[in-house]
């Protein structure tokens, strides 16, 4: 078992003819994801890595049965692409695109809610259920199947943590990037809810960072969970008022500090690692407890 994605995914890649889109199409195919179609307005009839390209998502759904989308469309046009996918009835849209305007993200989230669909991101590395399916840009070889569910705000930091878990023999059920922006579709709380229900997930790892209140809200929710949670947070030494790479990673208006997040998580019984490479030992302890 896993959450969000498994072998049943039939993926359409929006922006498949771009540099990123075509590169990651190949990577996803190599991982075993069923990429059934690509969409690139004006490029219908072409092929990328043997995947047929259509002009619209509607065609990709009608002719190839696509049921999930991965968006690589450049930021100024990304909102249009996500709306197109949602309007075509797709219920899981993974938005890799970075630098999407805040107000476009607000509109995307509102429309997804109206359609009862799940949007992962924007500015996410994607979702992977190791050994089953991946939708995103994460490296293929660091994951292995197992009982650890991972939810992360940052891509490469999650790779770091996941690689150390795999090295320690601790595989993952599903690894999800919630995205580095201020407004994202799927959040920590919804993921915790799904991991709690997933019978193969036995421990949950949160990879958080400064900015916003996602970790504090997660902490509140964790109090009602039966599964143990381990966390690592980045940004202990980030100066307030400065955006640390991610649009969402900023301490502003008195919110989003490292200390407040650690305090909230610890009071909810979460084991918070001081250093990224301490995560596997804490997970191991939680598994054997």
């Amino acid at each position, binding site marked *: 078992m896993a959450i969000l994605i498994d072998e049943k995914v039939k993926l359409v890649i929006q922006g498949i003819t771009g540099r990123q889109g075509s590169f990651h199409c190949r990577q996803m195919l190599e991982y075993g994801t069923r990429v059934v179609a690509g969409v690139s307005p004006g490029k219908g009839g072409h092929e990328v890595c043997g995947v047929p390209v259509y002009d619209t998502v509607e065609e990709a759904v009608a002719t190839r049965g696509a049921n999930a989308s991965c968006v690589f469309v450049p930021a100024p046009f990304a909102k249009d692409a996500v709306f197109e996918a949602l309007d075509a009835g797709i219920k899981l849209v993974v938005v890799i695109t970075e630098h999407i305007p805040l107000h476009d993200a607000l509109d995307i989230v509102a429309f997804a809610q109206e359609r009862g669909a799940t949007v992962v991101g924007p500015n996410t590395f994607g979702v992977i259920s190791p050994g089953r399916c991946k939708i995103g840009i994460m490296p293929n070889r660091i994951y292995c199947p197992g009982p650890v569910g991972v939810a992360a705000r940052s891509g490469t930091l999650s790779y770091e943590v996941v690689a150390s878990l795999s090295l320690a023999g601790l595989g993952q059920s599903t690894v999800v990037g919630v995205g580095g922006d201020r407004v994202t*579709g799927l959040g920590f709380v919804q993921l915790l809810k799904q991991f709690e229900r997933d019978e193969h997930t036995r421990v949950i790892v949160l990879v958080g960072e400064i900015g916003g209140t996602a970790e504090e809200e997660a902490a509140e929710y964790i109090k009602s969970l039966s599964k143990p949670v381990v966390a690592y947070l980045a940004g*202990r030494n980030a100066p307030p008022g400065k955006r640390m790479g991610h649009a969402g990673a900023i301490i502003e208006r008195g919110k989003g500090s490292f200390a407040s997040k650690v305090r909230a998580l610890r009071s909810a019984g979460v084991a918070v690692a001081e250093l990224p490479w301490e995560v596997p030992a804490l997970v191991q302890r939680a598994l054997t407890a």
Partner: protein
Amino acid sequence: MKLYEFMAKEILERHGIRIPPGQVVDTPEEAASVASRLGPVVLKAQVLAGGRGKAGGVVFATSPAEARRRAERMLGSRIQGYPVERILVEKRLDIEQELYVGIVVDGSARRPVLLASARGGVDVEEVPDAELIRRKIDVRWGLMPYRAREVALRLGLPRQLVPAFADIACRMYGAFRQYDAELVECNPLAVTPDGLVAADARLNVDDEALFRQKQLPRVHDDTPLERKVKELGLSYVQLDGDIAVMANGAGITMATIDVLQKFGGRPANFLDVGGGAAAEPMAKAMAVLLEARPRALLINIFGGITRCDDVARAVLEVRGSRPFDLPVVVRLVGTNEDEGMRLLREAGIEAYRSMEEAAAAVVRLARGEA
């Protein structure tokens, strides 16, 4: 991007919100001439710092001569590090009450919210939660006037001011959406004998939307070095230490800084070269980092998909084109890491697979230990 108060006010005025009569000046003479036209005035330093009032950035003058003196003292001074180059001289208002009203994005609700308080004029963070009214706004329909009227009544405004308050809140929301704002704020929104006036205003624009906000002025709030790296399309924040840091991805860069600090080092900057860690922007960024004359450089690359031998070649290329003598430590993991490691070590650069070893090594080298 934060706009100056006078810019935010110009925009709100165009949206039909009343602001005090006034003018932006950059000489004491102009300040005096505006005061002779307006009578008693307030002089407000145009800086991007918050808490300007407490730092002496807002002063009153009752005569043109006093306005000139005050302006003379204010121009060229610094407020929280920001030089005062312009002053907004405005007619002094007869204020009966100060309100707070703002539209911001609530990241956890994933929606804009209308914030209002009957205790304006202070930092909104200092207003206790119980006295701050929050109303979520559905972007599909926008802020409806009835909702803004409900908020006005709850603030305890006299009945005759309720429609005016609702009108201002709705117009603020209009500006919020039109200009891709992160925040639109009137603090205070002043209750005067002539009605409601935006005595102060803030409008922060989402940087990611500037490409479609071409009509807005551009305001820079970064150091020259920060701007230079940003122009390369990379994310950079200057810190006050002596170990330059470069990593791929926001989270891992923050983590690298935290690890260095924990190991007793002092990071000089945050520099995220992007998850892809392409060789070319990395080489450019490195050149800029060296300009700040750090004592050592740590490059931390988790090359998922990026090839480590490419990263190694980029590092060697920078050193070949402009020799540097500071110690460089590289941490490399990913595709072709053995080859990358070999290339670096042969060139005398310390290279490691683990973040822990690399961090320890660079802290040692920055201290001048071998």
